């Protein structure tokens, strides 16, 4: 089998190219994946909703930022800040008007409704922005790099990882350190019982979705530094899912670790053969799922 031979010789010579730098860059890529995954993990953890539109919502937010930047000539950061309240309101409204209706009817209905939303977003973006690639410009910071001693890393990528950690920290604080968080966790445990305490679970879920949309906005900005397309959503979603599943349901820090594992696996895959980047992530995901179906840090 000629195919088999090339595969294995390729694998061995490729593994020789894996270095500490590969791992470090993988960790940084993992920061972006953790940002993709954090909002998904939050929603999954609080209300068990599998949001199949998550990847496309990130892309939609990125296009919104692009539109604001080109229309008003704003810096990207400012555009994101302006978009934030609208993102929260959008998430809140979507949950309140549409998604809350789906929660009582098992797994399939929310899956399909969010699938429908995903397809509407993808095709709407194709209609409005065409299939051309877009990207966000951040100026000089994009090309700066610093020497960490073990590897030279891009400042922007380091910043991405830092923001991912900050987002996870902020969400953890929100969950475990505030009254709102107590309400979220209580509603997650039992949407029936919290009503006895005068909490409206529908509002709580809508707030959770609003928060998830804030994270979506942040993820969109950091995704936008590389080219993206109206159809980039599903790939982002899949990576985010893998991070959430590896990390374990409802574990925010697990999601960060999951994102980093996928990032490292993809970088090792790419070092072996440029075509194996995605495959590396998927195979490590499948192996972990086979060994620990509930994820590494499930409660």
């Amino acid at each position: 089998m000629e195919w088999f031979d090339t595969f294995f010789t390729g694998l061995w010579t490729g593994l020789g190219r894996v270095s500490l730098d590969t791992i470090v860059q993988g960790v940084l890529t993992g920061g972006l994946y953790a940002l993709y995954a954090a909002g998904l993990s939050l929603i999954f953890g609080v209300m068990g909703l599998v949001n199949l539109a998550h990847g496309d919502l990130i892309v939609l937010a990125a296009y919104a930022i692009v539109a604001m930047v080109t229309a008003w000539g704003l810096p990207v950061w400012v555009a994101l800040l302006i978009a934030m309240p609208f993102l929260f309101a959008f998430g809140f409204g979507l949950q309140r008007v549409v998604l809350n209706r789906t929660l009582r009817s098992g797994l399939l209905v929310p899956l399909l409704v969010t699938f429908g939303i995903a397809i509407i977003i993808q095709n709407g973006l194709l209609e409005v922005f065409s299939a051309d690639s877009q990207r966000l410009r951040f100026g000089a910071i994009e090309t700066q790099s610093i020497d960490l001693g073990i590897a030279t890393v891009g400042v922007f990528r380091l910043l991405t990882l830092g923001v991912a950690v900050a987002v996870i920290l902020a969400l953890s604080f929100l969950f475990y350190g505030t009254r709102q968080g107590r309400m979220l966790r209580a509603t997650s445990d039992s949407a029936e019982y919290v009503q006895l305490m005068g909490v409206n679970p529908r509002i709580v879920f809508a707030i959770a979705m609003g928060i998830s949309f804030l994270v979506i906005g942040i993820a969109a900005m950091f995704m936008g530094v590389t080219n993206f397309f109206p159809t980039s959503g599903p790939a982002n979603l899949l990576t985010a899912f893998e991070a959430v599943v590896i990390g374990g349901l409802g574990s925010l820090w697990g999601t960060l670790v999951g994102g980093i594992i996928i990032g490292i696996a993809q970088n090792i895959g790419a070092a072996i053969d440029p075509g194996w980047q995605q495959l590396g992530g998927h195979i490590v995901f499948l192996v972990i799922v086979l060994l620990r179906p509930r994820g590494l840090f499930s409660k």
Partner: protein
Amino acid sequence: MTDVPAPSRAAPLSTSQPGRGYTIRTGTRTSMVGAVLAVIIVLALLVAPGLISRGLLEQLVLLFVMIGLAQCWNLLAGYAGLISVGQQAFVGIGAYTLFACIITLGLDPLLAVVLAAIAGAVLSIPIGWVVFRLQGAYFAVVTWVVSEVVRLFAAKWQALGGGTGRNLPPAAKRGMFGVEWTSDFFDRTADFFNNVRGWVGLPPRGAFRSADAQAIIIYWAALVACVIIVGGVYYMLRKRVGLGLSAVKDGEIAAESVGVDLRRTKFSAFVFAGFGAALVGSIYFLLTGTISPSAAFDLQRWTAFVIFIVVIGGLGTIEGPILGAILYIVLQGYFSNFSTWYLMGLGAFAIVVMLFAPKGLWARSPTGSTSRCSPRGAG
């Protein structure tokens, strides 16, 4: 389990057959009418190629493919409670097996279709072994990941065009089993069919070409595949597996407690769905004669729209997916010039159906709620 009824009519305690405690009859009078109708429709479709245009013929192939896929997904989700978003893996496995058999082994395309379906069934076993480790939403995610892995491997298969894909050599279809016979048959019956065309007001058809015969053979293969899948799902649901699936659907723990082997029951549904998807997938790509990883493993086309078809038509019924597929093909014909708008409309329609008529259109249709021709699954 409202409709696996009538054990009372079937005299559940009759012990006329020694060794078999009782029989369960799941048929009703409507189901008899339905069966007769189905036979008439299939017979009419068998001779239809003499009357309809090539374009319509190819639309019907797509219809049979979508019905087959929808029926398989319906078996998984509507009866076995398995929500897969990775069925495109089996469409792609079927397509790539077909091309491998024809191009590298030089087999007859129809034999290659049979082998493709077998490959789908065989590969669904190791795939099932992986994905059955997870349940619910995780199951959905892992089926998607597995289909991506299969796609990435297919893109590495240089003999079949790698990442860009390739075409079938035209000679392969020209020399296909039955081409001569079919040409001969339609040449001999040209007068008869032209008479029939005259009665229904169609112009007589032109000269019959080899490409027409190829399309007709593929059409027949698609029709047979569709009948095999619908019949197979129907048969499975009527037999032990189907009763087990209905019981599982109503309550997994209760079903296990009365002796339903959960894993085996679900696994057999998964293998059958893999077989069916590979079967119709290979036939579709035999018709188009061109393959690429992105087309063969298209999540949107082979799974997302299939899910919409099932859900809009009616999950857990046999009629629903057929109705949904017809609706999908007809609407696609109308909107093909506005494809992004069509897809947006389809997405919006699926959302509205899910929110306001979660049982699908079959349940809402005038006859659907009172009479049904099939064993019943998820409500």
